[in-house]
């Protein structure tokens, strides 16, 4: 397995990367559900159509990650553990009631995290996974741009813009706390799993 991984260019531990693909599939699956719900509730027609496209994108990403995880030998389930980075976002899912808050949360915080994580992880994975991530990255960038479109379209006064910034700042702060929890988990994991070649990345 290790020789084959080296030939394919995988620098992460094989099993951890397979598990990470499962986590990513779950995150994309969650994104699909949330986006679909919010698409149905959106009043603005143009925003509704853009969110419909995003819902379809998320389903393709979830499927692609499930298939990659299966190819890497992972057992599939629909309820793997949630990434620690995303856990602090759960209260915001309930709080976000307007289209601007919802797209800020998903498109300008979670999607930006995804774009960053993909860029950070891509150099360390096998060629097939890299191609998959390139394909998904192009969509994620479009989703971030959709988030900006919503903000520019609906936050037309300095007050509404400031409300958006304040909300985004709180979500970003929660994500930063999630990363600190992850750092602690990685340190604990490193001590507990001596011999594990590399720690798992924090891909969403």
């Amino acid at each position, binding site marked *: 397995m290790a020789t084959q991984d080296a030939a394919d*260019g995988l*620098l992460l531990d094989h099993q951890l990367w397979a598990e990470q693909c499962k986590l990513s599939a779950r995150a994309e699956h969650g994104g699909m559900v949330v986006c679909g719900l919010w698409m149905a509730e959106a009043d603005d027609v143009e925003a509704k159509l853009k969110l419909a496209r995003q819902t379809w994108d998320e389903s393709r990403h979830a499927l692609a990650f499930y298939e990659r995880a299966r190819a890497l030998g992972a057992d599939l389930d629909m309820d793997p553990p949630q990434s620690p980075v995303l856990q602090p976002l759960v209260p915001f899912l309930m709080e976000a009631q307007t289209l601007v808050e919802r797209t800020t949360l998903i498109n300008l915080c979670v999607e*930006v995290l995804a*774009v*960053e*994580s*993909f*860029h*950070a992880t*891509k*150099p*360390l994975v096998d060629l097939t996974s890299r191609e998959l991530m390139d394909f998904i990255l192009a969509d*994620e*960038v479009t989703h*971030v*741009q959709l988030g*900006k*479109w919503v903000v*520019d379209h609906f936050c037309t006064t*300095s*007050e509404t*813009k*400031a*409300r*958006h*910034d*304040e909300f*985004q*700042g*709180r*979500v*970003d*702060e929660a*994500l*930063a*706390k999630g*990363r*600190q929890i*992850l*750092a*602690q988990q*990685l*340190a604990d*994991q*490193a*001590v507990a799993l*001596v*011999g*594990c*070649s*590399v*720690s798992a990345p*924090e891909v969403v």
Partner: protein
Amino acid sequence: MTILPSYRGTMPLEELLELLQLVAFIKRRGVRFLQEWATASPVPEVRDGLRRQITREEHHLTLVRERLRALGAEEDVSYQDTDLENAFQITAAAPQEVEKLAGFYRSIKEYSVARCAAMIALADPPTQQAMDAVSDDEEHAQRWGESLRLKLSPTPELQRDGNIMRARILEQTAKSRERLARQLQEKARRVLQDAPSKP
């Protein structure tokens, strides 16, 4: 700062300039860190690789400077990020090569690439192109660093030490993100306080 009517990015210009100054800081500090490491490293393969990387980092800094100028700003050499500075100092103080490799190539670079990725998504087209070029280079650098770390880590203990260093640096970069998020909130709250109250 001159307002450029020709700016065509989705990200506000002020936010983009802040990100470019941050990347310039990482590059400046990174060159200094790599130069010190290349001088002191006992491993020839590390020394040779680092010298090549220094050239690339200097080139990235040039690209960032050019973008700043094109956008009407100058590189702010006094720009500081305390948490990232801590990350560099922790990595530089690590006694083992595998820790330095994990700290810089697996963790500090990860943060730097993340900042470039945000610009690839939302900046103006010329900055997107420049950040694409930097990001491609970073991908090669990260693969080089991680391959070498695995090669130099034949024992579980060495692998563990590298992973612990990665966690320590991640903690610092998370603090840097937290600080930026708080700044955004404080600025927004000031605007809301100053806004005339609704009848």
